[in-house]
């Protein structure tokens, strides 16, 4: 009995932490409709600033109560100001841009903030001081429970009450709720939206900063927090219903309690199998999210979103003769590369080819089919692991493994896609993220089969392909064919049907197009191509690790597609080449390549809201299909 109470309290403390960061994200999304990827970075910044502020305020014998709580408060305010500044300098300029571009911009902010933290606080984990007077524990039903966690629970509950009062009882709160329901109407009624948006951003960011700062006695400040926290926060927001603060609280509570009890129960014997529940904590929130989204597509307390802004999407055209000859020339040049360039260039080009196919497969979903996948690395990783395991565990020849691995990814895409196509917009994107995270966690933990966090080594091509240039030609052929096939499909009746579904689901229904099935097949096609890219990647590196299906790689894919432009099939190829090349050259010359890349992304979004290829098209007219 007493252990159940303790687990419950543990869950409450976890819920409090989750709620603080998710509530801010939900508020920001509700009002501005921006999916703020940088919210996790603000949380991370919160921990770091609190570390420094408390350290600065305290003497040699640790912080006093004033120093500690003062530091936490300073951190929350500083992060709130950072959020407001980001909104005013960057986001305010791109509210009119397509949603995906806003996402890309916030991802640029993630990169910049990460390197800012690296520059100021260095790469080491920093363990902060414990809260003065709250270091000990209290006895609850005979068991010790950390005093600080009780305080955390109280703070979470107070913030929830304060937010509720703010939203329900003040004029400003009424405006926020009104804007969440109908932003255009609030604008039409003469409310100054600019400052409303900035204020909401400041409040949401301050909550993230507070959430981070309060964790300083419990976990070290480190640079990987941004993406891990944003994933958690997204899950909570989506489960609760986007824009709903009570929903975020409820979802945080459910997820944190389930996690806490998984840890508390430990091993569980079911029908002779031993299930290790603590290991489940890595995915439990994503499983909860998948279940909730399938049962209640708008989250527990969310409402169906109003009609979504549709931007006239891309219109692929057959190649014009001039463009066709230019492409052939590029292809000829690529074929000649092993004769004219050094080995390093060849290796870099293999990477570029692999990621060009990966990005093209993601574009196939995002562009023509209109489904943003935030977890596309899952299929890349399944292809890579499929290839490696077919060679290592099943004893396939390398050539067979390379060509069979895409089917492993296709099977994964068929399974995940079947659920995803029942949703749309941000909810669909989040579900793809959830599945990718589940796949990642299985690979990460299944030591005996996948090698766990070490991955699989010694995955090399057959001897006749062992030389760099021979394998380069394999990569060039397969990636080239893959990209060409994807483009060809876009021009076919099936590709047009996908675009039709993106443009008007209502009209699809009225002319007998089975949209859900079409979109499901699109997932399988895209998954197969991403899997092929993954398999080529595995043999080119000789080893693979769980990073091949991690969130950062999914995000890289998104950046490549958006960088090049989502309107046309050549966009992702250009984006992938640019991204891979930048990552390679910049990373060799500076420790702060992420900040530079982030800065470039932000500049590109501000300068070319249609992507690079989209910009060239617009600027120089419809001179063929680039």
């Amino acid at each position, binding site marked *: 009995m007493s252990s159940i109470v303790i687990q419950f309290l543990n869950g409450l403390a976890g819920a409090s932490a989750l709620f603080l960061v998710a509530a801010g994200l939900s508020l920001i999304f509700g009002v501005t409709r921006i999916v703020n990827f940088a919210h996790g970075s603000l949380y991370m910044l919160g921990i770091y600033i609190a570390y420094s502020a408390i350290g600065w305020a305290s003497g040699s014998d640790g912080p006093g109560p004033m120093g500690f709580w003062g530091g936490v408060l300073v951190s929350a305010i500083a992060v709130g100001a950072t959020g407001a500044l980001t909104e005013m300098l960057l986001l305010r300029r791109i509210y009119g841009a397509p949603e995906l571009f806003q996402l890309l911009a916030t991802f640029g902010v993630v990169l910049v903030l990460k390197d800012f933290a690296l520059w100021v606080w260095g790469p080491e984990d920093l363990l902060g001081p414990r809260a003065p007077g709250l270091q000990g524990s209290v006895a609850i039903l005979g068991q010790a429970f950390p005093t600080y966690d009780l305080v955390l629970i109280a703070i979470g509950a107070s913030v929830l009450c304060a937010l509720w009062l703010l939203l329900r009882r003040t004029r400003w709160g009424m405006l926020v709720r009104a804007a969440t329901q109908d932003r255009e109407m609030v604008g039409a009624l003469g409310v100054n939206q600019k400052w409303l948006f900035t204020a909401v951003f400041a409040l949401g960011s301050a909550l993230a900063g507070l959430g981070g700062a309060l964790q300083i006695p419990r976990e070290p400040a480190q640079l990987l927090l941004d993406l891990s926290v944003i994933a958690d926060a997204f899950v909570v927001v989506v489960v609760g219903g986007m824009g709903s603060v009570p929903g975020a609280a409820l979802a945080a509570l459910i997820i944190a309690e389930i996690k806490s009890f998984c840890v508390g129960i430990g091993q569980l014997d079911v029908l002779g199998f031993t299930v290790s529940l603590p290991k489940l904590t890595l995915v439990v929130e994503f499983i909860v999210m998948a279940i909730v989204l399938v049962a209640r597509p708008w989250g527990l307390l969310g409402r169906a979103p109003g009609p979504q802004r549709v931007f006239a999407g891309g219109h692929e055209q057959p190649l014009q003769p001039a463009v066709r000859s230019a492409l052939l020339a590029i292809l000829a040049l690529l074929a000649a590369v092993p004769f004219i360039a050094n080995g390093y260039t060849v290796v870099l080009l293999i990477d570029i080819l692999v990621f060009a196919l990966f990005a093209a497969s993601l574009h196939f979903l995002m562009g023509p089919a209109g489904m943003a996948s935030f977890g596309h690395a899952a299929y890349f990783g399944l292809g890579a692991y499929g290839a490696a395991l077919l060679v290592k565990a099943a004893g396939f020849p390398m050539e067979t493994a390379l060509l069979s691995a895409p089917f492993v990814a296709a099977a994964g895409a068929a399974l995940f896609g079947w659920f995803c196509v029942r949703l749309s917009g941000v909810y669909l994107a989040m579900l793809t993220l959830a599945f990718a995270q589940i796949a990642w966690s299985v690979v990460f933990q299944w030591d005996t089969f996948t090698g766990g966090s070490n991955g699989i080594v010694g995955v090399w091509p057959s001897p006749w392909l062992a030389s760099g240039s021979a394998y380069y030609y394999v990569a060039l052929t397969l990636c080239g064919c893959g990209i060409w096939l994807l483009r060809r499909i876009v*021009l076919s009746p099936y590709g047009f049907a996908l675009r039709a579904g993106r443009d*008007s689901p209502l*009209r699809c229904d009225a002319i007998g*197009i089975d949209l859900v099935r079409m979109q499901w097949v699109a997932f399988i096609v895209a998954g197969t191509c991403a899997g092929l890219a993954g398999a080529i990647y595995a043999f080119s590196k000789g080893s693979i690790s769980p990073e091949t299906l991690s969130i950062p790689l999914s995000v890289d894919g998104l950046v490549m597609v958006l960088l090049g432009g989502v309107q046309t099939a050549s966009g992702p190829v250009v984006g992938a080449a640019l991204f891979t090349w930048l990552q390679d050259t910049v990373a060799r010359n500076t420790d702060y390549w992420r900040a530079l890349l982030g800065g470039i992304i932000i500049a590109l979004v501000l300068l070319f809201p249609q992507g690079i290829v989209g910009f060239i098209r617009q600027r120089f007219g419809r001179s063929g299909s680039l």
Partner: protein
Amino acid sequence: MNILSVSALSKSFGGVQAVRAVSFNVEAGQLLAIIGPNGAGKSTCFNMVNGQIRPDSGSVTIGGVEVSGKTPREIWRLGVGRTFQITATFASMTVRENVQMALLSYHHRLASWWPRVMNLYREEADELLRRLGMSEQAHRQCALLAYGDLKRVELAMALANRPRLLLMDEPTAGMAAAERIELMALTAEIVRERRIAALFTEHDMDVVFAHADRIVVLNRGLLIAEGSPEDVRVDAQVRDVYLGSRR
């Protein structure tokens, strides 16, 4: 010959009886208009015929086949073309491609992965566009069209599956007066020459009385009058509903 038969159709939302035991038929080559004041149950009635709302009781048959409970997609396969109050077209495609999509779906060719759309059913699409006076716009992207032209594109798409029944929700809403009459005259002409049964709701009484063969008047979910425009025009109950009762 009756193409569409609606009998004893009822639907309530919560405590509100939106449609109460409404029955009517539409024959081939005939235009039937459903009119009535706001909240009379026109849209509910209309959406039960096209499959978007499932009736509580009663039946809807198209060509003798019971359709209540079928999805809009299945109903389309029975030979039903539809246009919407707010046009729904594929904005990123050209006018011709829009019609080609409907034709591809009709000919079960949407699963093909290889041929290029630009070469498929092009003549058939152009033929439909010519009939609707849209030949010159065929190459233009729908996102760039004027609203009246979008209505014509919709009509061309609705005709692509050689329908027996045409369902039009407020076919002239949002158009200028001259355009309305022109579009409706063209629609009536096509409906008669192809022997299609057409059902439409409409607010503009000029359009209704100029082109409908028969009119059904609903009020508070009940059918209060049915007949030719002349009959309906002089119906005392209809006058009461539209002009207020004379006590």
